[in-house]
């Protein structure tokens, strides 16, 4: 009888598939994971502490660096929280610009996820296809905001820059193109037998578990919970658009994959309508005081980011800096279920499960 013993394996903090500085301490028996312990905090920058000494407008660039793959939603959640407290009515044109920017960001974010997830599974080409489309979005957002990744675009009461001439048309042109490419994605990957074997039934959890673990976004919708804050608790002007909330009930990586790709399509629908309705003129910034002071009290707002429910809590004592600022970061909450999912899985499945959760380490660590 051979003597076997368990082995400790450090996956990360530098590892090709942890998407950043994330570490997993695995107790493995051969290739089977007995126990997994996530270690986070490598990218903790203390945004919340820093924010306590900053004015609200100055905090916006910090939010860009949280979920750096879809910075627009982060910009928005902070502005939305302050606007909710101060009861600022954002001009219509600004709302449209915000929605277009956020939805473009959502498409870009899901594209990055799609590409990197398949790269994790060993397919090298999809990443480059996804980045080709993402590059177009980044260029569009660059034209709008002047930055490619950390946009710093939104302001309390509106947005910083108006759309350049012909920009809306460019966005409108992008939509059918992206739809066409999406078909190609499905042809290339979605039907692939090897891919299906890698995702079907992997990382499965139930609806109750998802809710209990505070999962949100596609990680929740993959279990059949039809819940999208854009639809169910509409903020901004999302109530004006006709779109669907894609749901799957498998609860596995495959369901998450399908939900995310379907969400790209829904985002394109929203973009299409937003481009059609885009007001020809109007203000892009509401009349807000020069120095923004949120009224004394506290507020917690939540919106739908590509990764799930992103929230912003502000406790204000009436000064120009927040007394306490807290972000509910979806990746942080979504990652909690990982140790449970990994138990008894192989290392190959670890990559598949971790990838399907779709985390951004900047957001996990705050």
């Amino acid at each position: 009888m051979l003597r076997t013993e368990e082995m400790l394996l450090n996956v990360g903090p530098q590892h090709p598939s942890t998407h950043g500085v994330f570490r997993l301490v695995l107790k493995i028996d051969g290739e089977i994971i007995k126990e997994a312990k996530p270690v986070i905090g490598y990218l903790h920058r203390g945004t919340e502490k820093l924010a306590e000494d900053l004015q609200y407008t100055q905090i916006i660039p910090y939010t860009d660096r949280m979920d750096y793959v879809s910075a627009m939603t982060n910009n928005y959640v902070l502005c939305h929280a302050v606007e909710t407290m101060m009861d600022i009515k954002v001009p219509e044109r600004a709302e449209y610009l915000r929605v277009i920017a956020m939805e473009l960001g959502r498409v870009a974010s899901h594209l990055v996820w799609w590409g990197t997830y398949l790269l994790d599974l060993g397919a090298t080409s999809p990443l480059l296809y996804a980045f080709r489309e993402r590059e177009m979005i980044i260029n569009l957002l660059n034209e709008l905001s002047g930055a490619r990744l950390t946009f710093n675009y939104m302001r309390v009461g509106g947005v910083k820059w108006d759309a350049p001439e012909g920009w809306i048309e460019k966005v409108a042109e992008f939509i059918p193109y992206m739809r066409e490419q999406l078909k190609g994605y499905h042809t290339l990957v979605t039907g692939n037998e090897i891919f299906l074997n890698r995702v079907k039934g992997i990382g499965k959890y139930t609806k109750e578990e998802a809710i209990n673990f505070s999962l949100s976004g596609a990680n929740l919708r993959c279990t059949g919970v039809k819940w999208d804050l854009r639809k169910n608790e509409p903020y901004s002007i999302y109530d004006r658009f006709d779109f669907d909330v894609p749901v799957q009930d498998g609860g596995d990586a495959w369901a998450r994959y399908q939900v995310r790709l379907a969400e790209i399509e829904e985002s394109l629908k929203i973009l299409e309508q937003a481009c059609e309705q885009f007001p020809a003129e109007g203000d892009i910034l509401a009349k807000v005081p020069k120095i923004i002071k949120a009224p004394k009290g506290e507020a917690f707002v939540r919106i739908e980011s590509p990764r799930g429910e992103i929230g912003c809590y502000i406790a204000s004592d009436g000064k120009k800096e927040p007394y306490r600022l807290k972000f509910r970061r979806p990746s942080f909450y979504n990652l909690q279920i990982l140790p449970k999912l990994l138990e008894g899985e192989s290392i190959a499945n670890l990559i598949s499960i971790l990838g399907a959760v779709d985390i951004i380490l900047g957001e996990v660590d705050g």
Partner: protein
Amino acid sequence: MSGEKDLEQQKKEAAAKAKAAALAKMKAKEQGEAKEESPAEDMDLAKQKAAAAAKAKAAALAKMKAKEQGEAKEESPAEDMDLAKQKAAAAAKAKAAALAKQKAKEQGEAKEESPAEDLDIAKQKAAAAAKAKAAAAAKAKAAAQAKQAAGAGDGDDDDEKAKAIAAAKAKAAAAAKAKAAAQAKQAGGAGGDDEKAKAIAAAKAKAAAAAKAKLAAGGAGADDEKAKAIAAAKAKAAAAAAAKAKAAGGKADAEPAEEKKPSVNQPYLDKYVKVINENLGSDVLEDYYINNLSKDVPTLIVKADYYYKLAEFLKYNEQLGFDYLSELHGTDYETHMEVYVHLFSYKNTQSVALKVKIDRNEPTIDSLQPLWEGANWPECEAYDLLGIKFKNHPNLHRIMLGEEWVGYPLRKDYEPYDVEV
């Protein structure tokens, strides 16, 4: 969607009808009055008068009824806010009716004292009464409309004025209704209520009338926007005038509601508090209120001793069923620490904020991890950054900074520790 559109149309039609009715009634009444004031007192005239008055009255009543029905129909799917308005309107109507009756009586008495004492005096009286009633009805209606549209019921006792502004009021009412429709459309009611509630909240906060006006204008603008969205945002320039009108309507609409109905979430809060008091006793909650700054979320402040018990109750109680922990974090208020928990129920689609104040020197509180797995890491984070210890947490560790970090950075008195300095 189509149902809502129909509703809107119905409302518009009803408003138009009401307007027409008001006009017609006004005319009828004017005629009646003119006749009344004429000195002629012969039998035929009286009869004629009576007939005309009766007709007018009947028409007015019928119209009123129709309108009321229409309103009832329209407003039944809308929120309780409208109901309250209706009730208020009804009350106003009743008051107005009483006033009118008084007047009518006076008139009747005046008539009685008139020298004419022929047989038909009874008839005449009847006519006068009918007339008076018609007037009262018209007045009541005008008052109701006025109340509903503007809530400025002061000028109503003056019949003439009421008449004069009735048409305008009706228009305003129509606008208000359109707005209501827009709001109703706005999405299951919640969003609309938020909007309104926000306006209300801010209005409360700001005492100045000017500010209020501005604010309400803003609110109206929002509604205008929505209406535009429905109309595919096409006729923008034309909407400007309408927006102005609606601004008035919107303002008038929001303000009276404010006093009557603070928040749409109030009933929820009341329900929670009631259920909690019934089941856990009345000394569990330290305070509870609607947080107007935070989209009107019902907020409960629980005593530290009952924190876990209440959380458990909130999760497992049939009527509450908060199965989702959306957010958990701590705050250092220098005098005390606070843990803020935002819970959500997918069953009832309702949120609640649960807060607990804890001693700053000895920040210890029960862990919610046994109830919601999702509280695991957020509690570690609160422990890491604020030093709040969570009892019964399975693995409380410094999740971000590491165990060797000195101090708790999010405390207000935190001094960075640096070995080299």
